[in-house]
């Protein structure tokens, strides 16, 4: 780790001001950033910790009945809420207890790791990512591998999830890291079905349009038979080839649909 300054603002306004100084980088739960610093792969001059800001923490139902999760809320608290059980289940199975107690939803979404769980929930639920300056629809937010629509210095403040009729997340775990080798989030709303896939694509989390269409007509695992993704553009590494991940996406989607009941 290289030497850096640490600021711990207690208000959002102070955090925004602290981040405006060029070399500064926001720090939330630090579950990715701290290991990166330890490996000396990043050398920010200043870290601005967001976890001491009260207004960024906590879970509530907003006026529209959406589940609004403060960006600095750790996974354990999301796992403990019962308004959106599929989201609770997802949060309860991220990483290990240390990760779940330190890691935050805002940090995960800002990092947009292609194998992280939360991007699947946000995209699969059609969530709204609220920042200090605007509201971004999940469909516009995830722009690629470790890439998002966030501007320099922009801070996620809250994530609003419309609560579906039924939903489930099925993850095939990479057992060492507990990241998703492939994870599929399926949610059924009055307007239709959303299927979001993490861990599989080189472009990061994506929606599987054909599966959504099939499930909108018939929300059952059988409705997916015959549907298959192409291995091209899928992540290929020592854990599995692109074709393997494409196949696994189909399997996990069926499991998610079955679990959603």
């Amino acid at each position: 780790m290289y030497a850096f300054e640490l600021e711990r603002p207690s208000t959002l306004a102070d955090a925004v001001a602290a981040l405006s100084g060029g070399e500064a980088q926001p720090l939330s739960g630090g579950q990715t950033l701290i290991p990166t610093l330890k490996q000396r792969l990043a050398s920010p001059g200043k870290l601005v910790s967001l976890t001491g800001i009260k207004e960024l923490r906590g879970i509530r139902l907003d006026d529209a009945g959406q589940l609004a999760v403060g960006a600095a809320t750790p996974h354990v608290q999301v796992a403990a809420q019962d308004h959106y059980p599929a989201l609770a289940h997802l949060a309860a199975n991220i990483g290990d207890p240390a990760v779940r107690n330190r890691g935050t939803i805002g940090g995960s979404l800002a990092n947009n790791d292609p194998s992280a769980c939360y991007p699947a929930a946000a995209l699969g639920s059609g969530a709204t990512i609220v920042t200090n300056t605007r509201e971004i629809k999940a469909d516009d937010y995830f722009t690629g591998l470790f890439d998002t629509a966030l501007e320099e210095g922009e801070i996620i403040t809250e994530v609003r999830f419309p609560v579906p009729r039924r939903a489930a997340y099925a993850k095939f775990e990479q057992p060492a890291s507990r990241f998703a080798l492939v994870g599929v989030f399926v949610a059924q709303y009055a307007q239709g079905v959303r299927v979001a896939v993490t861990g599989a694509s080189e472009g990061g989390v994506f929606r599987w349009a054909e599966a959504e269409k099939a499930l909108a007509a018939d929300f059952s695992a059988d409705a997916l038979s015959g549907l298959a993704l192409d291995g091209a553009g899928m992540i290929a590494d020592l854990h599995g080839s692109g074709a393997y991940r494409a196949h696994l996406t189909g399997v996990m989607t069926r499991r998610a649909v079955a679990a959603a009941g």
Partner: protein
Amino acid sequence: MPADGGIGAATKRREDVRFLTGTGNYTDDINMRGQAYVHFLRSDVAHGRIKGIDTAEAAAMPGVIRIFTGADFEGVGSIPCGWQVTDRHGQPMQEPAHPVLAQGKVRHVGDPIAAVVAESRAEARDAAEAIAVDIEELPAVVDMKAALDDGAPKVHDDLTSNLCYDWGFVEDNREAVDAAIKGAAHVTTLELVNQRLVANAMEPRVALGDYNRASDDSTLYTTSQNPHVIRLLMGAFVLGIPEHKLRVVSPDVGGGFGSKIFHYAEEAFVTFAAKALNRPVKWTASRSEAFISDAQGRDHVTKIELALDADNNFVAIRTATLANMGAYLSTFAPSVPTYLHGTLMAGNYKTPNIYVNVKAVFTNTVPVDAYRGAGRPEASFQIERVIDKAARELGVDPIALRRQNFVTEFPYATPVAVEYDTGDYVATMDKLEEIADIKGFAARRAASEKRGMLRGFGVNCYIEACGIAPSALVGQLGARAGLYESATVRVNATGGITVMTGSHSHGQGHETSFAQVVAEMIGIDANMVEIVHGDTAKVPMGMGTYGSRSLAVGGSAMVRATEKIINKARKIAAHLMEASEADIELKDGKFSVAGTDKSVAWGT
């Protein structure tokens, strides 16, 4: 039997109290007043010529005490190899120098180029990044076959080639084996890769050097499976420190799997630097560093041929193995593919003709040495796999083929230099078939298939030479030190026993199990016995823990020492009870005079 059950009694491990409550004492837990920290700048190329090292900027950075390079180690010895293999032409293996810090060339990713000693770990690491090393990258060889090609880049310029040795075992068998294979009814051939792996003990390696200027004593605290061996290798061959001026301490050790047997450059460095700077110097490996500085395991490529006669009797085995040594010879590296491997090549089978050829090869990779079983699993893997393949080719049952060829008469002298004294492989296989319910397998497979599942079945036999002893034998085979073990059993005034053993636990739980052995011999509870190990100042001599030798060799020394104690105690008991020594019986910790009610208890 002692009241607590003695040998093998289920008990809680006494060492777990400290391990489970975070009060273990690992090498990294030791910190000394005035301690400085070293960070090694390591090569990021596999092969290169060092044209210059500029440390000026780094030396001026905050906290930097001194920067060492290879030039500081001229006149210091080479990291030694503890085993010399003689090739099939009677020539000794090619043995390259292994400097503490690279001199002239780097030969693998991770080869240390410079060492920064600073007031803190972070300052040492910061300064190491500021060192400018001018390296001319050279073509590297990482593939063993390519390394043996004419004109291949040489890992060591002063050796004739990248071939460390060409070993034949038993060389006199070669012609008979060739002839048997030529005349065989069937020959099954198999090529196998036993891939390289990283040992990855839970505790990374740590070394802390300390020096006492008043007494000229050096102390090395290190994560080792055998502190006495480190004292011998480092003291005698690298730094020139006699045993009485060098203490090596290995406190709690968090796993080794073999990788903590060997003497490493970092140990010599911290001991050397502590004296040069008159300050304790500490190094703690990061996990990433462990991947490029700990000796790795396996890395064999083998072709094995199994010849059978028309009745499916094994008539010959011939193997040709390439064994990767990496860039330098680690402490026991040459012994692993040879004597720890070739001697096991008969397996459990009476094959009359066996010839093993091993070519050990230098490559631009991290050194390879003993890892879990070391050479013996590699041998078993080859034999058992080729038998399975032969069974498939011949359309016979793999268990029946094994049974037909089992050694059944003992003692049995194998064609690969070892004698099996006893064994009953047929009875073992009978038992295996019973507990695995082989007869029911077909039905289980059918049931699985009905559910759309696959069910497989595999069988493997294994015989292993454990212990790596005695000294006379291993000396004949090339070991440069005797592989004996020592034990001192001390009876304290009130009957408690302190056992000093040269074996050392790196997770095995010797403090519990060894205490049971001594306690049962006397008939007292194990809590009367304390096991002391891991410190050359407390234990007079030792050879350490590896090759499944702790109980077989270290335990035997302990038993012999305890027998001497019992015999001496018997004399004292006879004297106390005014009886003849021949009439004294020891039972349950009590000496009594046969046929009387006279007795004295242990410790009175």
